[in-house]
């Protein structure tokens, strides 16, 4: 089994196939941007993009991404520049504790790749599954709004 992870092809070792994608990413590939928050897909801290779709890696099995393409927050930035979503997050000082923000960013990236001008309802649908206890929600919306404006 193999998959594309942030642009590179990797094997999924036999004894990791039944693990969740989150455990595979964090404990095998040492990519710790995606976080464990609840383990049952309810908080969104583990969000990565699988084949273009924002996906909860804590309830996705490693074997289910066989042949697929996985993108994590570590793979967003270019050599010299942050991804525009990352930059908007920094410009507006979105993070407080920061623990949920990789998941928030991945949900926002997937949203904006699929909808260049999302409606308010689409933003709500895309982002409501990503919980933040610090209360950064208004800034998350402001960052997305800024990106939408910039794309027009």
């Amino acid at each position, binding site marked *: 089994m193999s998959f594309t992870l942030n642009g590179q092809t990797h094997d999924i070792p036999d004894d990791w196939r039944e693990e969740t994608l989150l455990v595979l990413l964090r404990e095998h590939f040492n990519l710790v941007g995606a976080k464990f928050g609840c383990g049952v897909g309810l908080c969104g801290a583990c969000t990565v993009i699988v084949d273009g779709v924002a996906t909860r890696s804590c309830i996705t099995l490693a074997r289910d991404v066989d042949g697929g393409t996985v993108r994590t927050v570590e793979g967003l*930035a270019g050599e010299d520049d942050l991804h525009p979503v990352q930059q908007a997050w920094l410009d507006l000082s979105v993070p407080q504790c920061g623990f949920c923000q990789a998941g928030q960013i991945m949900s926002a990236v997937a949203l904006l790749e699929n909808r260049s001008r999302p409606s308010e309802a689409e933003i709500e649908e895309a982002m409501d599954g990503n919980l933040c206890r610090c209360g950064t929600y208004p800034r998350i919306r402001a960052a997305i709004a800024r990106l939408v404006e910039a794309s027009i």
Partner: protein
Amino acid sequence: MKRRTFLAGVGGGIFALIGAGTLVYSQIPVIPKRPEPDAKTAIGWISFNNNRFSLTLPRVEMGQNIATGLKQIACTELGADWDRVDVAFHDTGMDRVKATVGSESMMLFAEPLAQACASLRDALEAGRDSGEIAVTPRPGSELRAMKKCGYIGRSPEIVQGQDIVTGRPLYAGDVMRSGQLFGRVLRAPESVERSTRPLSWNADDARTVPGFVAIVEDCGPAIGKAQGLGIVAERSGALDAIAEALAVSWDVTGTPENVDIQETIDIDANLAAGGLPHSVLDGVPEDGKYDVDQRLDVPLAAHSPIEPRVAVAEWQGGALTVWSGTQDAFYVRDVLLDAFGADGVTLQSMRVGGGFGGKVSATVELEAAALARGVGAPVKVQWTRAQEFTLGYHRPPASHRVRARVFDGKVTDWDHGQVSSHIFFTSAVAPKWMQRATDALIGDDGVARGMVPPYALGRARAAYDVKRLAVHTAAWRGLGAGPNGLAIECAMDEAARVANEDPLEFRLKHIDDRLLRAVLQRVAEISDWEHPPCYEDGLRKGRGIACGIYKGTSYAAVVADVAVEDNGATKVEKLWCAHDCGMVVNPDQVRAQCEGNLAWSIGMIFTDNLPTDKGVVMAQTFIDAPIPRNSDVPDMVIELVESARAPQGAGETAIVAGPAAIANAIRAATGVRIEQFPLKQGDLAV
């Protein structure tokens, strides 16, 4: 002689011992030491090497972005460019600093840090570039960082911001040591106040699970009275399967007291049974009927940081190193020393994935250390979300009754009673015998926080009681000040209605404090208070106001607009907040703290509730104990009013006013005065 050995020698008496496998853990709690910071200690936070400065943070970073704020202080006082100062998180090798609690970081640590930096600057200017320097304190007026210059009053890019948005390892759970394994300590699904221990388990079945490493019977001290059984695996994903295969049966003894939480803290039942022992205000209201007579209850509530607590422990010989995102590295180090009697314990504090007062006790650190010792390899322990709910401590439930008499447009009599559970003398740390002493002698100032209204209210009485419950309670953002503010500000709103006065004007008539008056007047201006929303598009709309003072130093006033559908579905449409914490070092981050407090205010009204049954927390997931979602939290307007005072706290201020502003807006929109929080949709259906 190690203390554990000493205790084992004494035995009995109040030195009660808990047997746990081959080891015995003391039941005498380690008392947190919380020294006040001073300039002399502060010199240990800043150093100069190779033409660069290194700032070792005396505070824990948990999202308040104090790393950024203190770096602004250091850069300004040193006269150093932003990029010339590196920031590191402290370990316990540094001189002890008090826990990161109580919104004290700017208030207590900014000036000592500035003093140390000023002395370092002087030494460098005098041509010294090595050796230790002494701090010569100077008047605050001579400190550059205590004025609006340099980086003060600005909002540079937050420290670790790049690392957060690119997913770099920052948190304790991101630590990966060579040969690291993953552990969990299983405990009985019972009240932590019942004595429970593992009785039997299917070790053979557990061993068949791929990734199984070990079962560790000696897995550290009990949590409450819940002794555990440790499991260790090669991958964290195997822990669920091992736990299931083990199918531990538990020995359960003892009946915890006060399993019916609601009945225990019921204010009216307690008032009927006699007075409340702890007085906050000792005026004597006149007998007779009250114009306002309002019950208000808030339930048990979880902190629910998105990061469940997590620690990595590694033994090297007899020395222990632990990485943890704790709010109190030194206290946790002390507890580890007490429990394990190690040759040395170093605790490295990591970025905290949300604290809110919940990550102060020692839990996963003890579990990880015990499991690491058991298997002879580094072990990471991260609580599951269910463990967070069932084994953590929580905001105590509180039951209030507030009575007020109004005459000639003023409150003449005020009587506020409350029954809650412990905060400072938490059952999570203090055994019952210790609580008996504190209950008898001093009560619990955490529960009392914010119970003195910021108003002149004539003959005013306020008193409370605390009851040990079958669930553990302790500090939660704002301590008692959130619920107390809610109770006081809802009652003041009702009093204004009785007086037939505008709730803003009515409040102002009762306030002497000019700073509180200023934030109230400011929030009225920015919200266009005179023009509230009204019935529109089939929605009942209303506007509410509230204000408060936190710890006598920080001020907030909040206006909320709500819209309520016929079926009772309620949305907060907008929030305005005027906030005064004195001189503002970083306006953007003070705003962020206000925003966080307002999001928590929405939680207090609509979601916060940790369901229990017979003293056992029933919540397992965010479905059982939800927190506000993105669409629940509206846009906000935050206005910083900057009185001419040194920097004060900002982390827990707006929560004294936000919840009541929303509740008062709901009252304005619907005529319903909510008495039991969180709000249920049906409460407002027509």
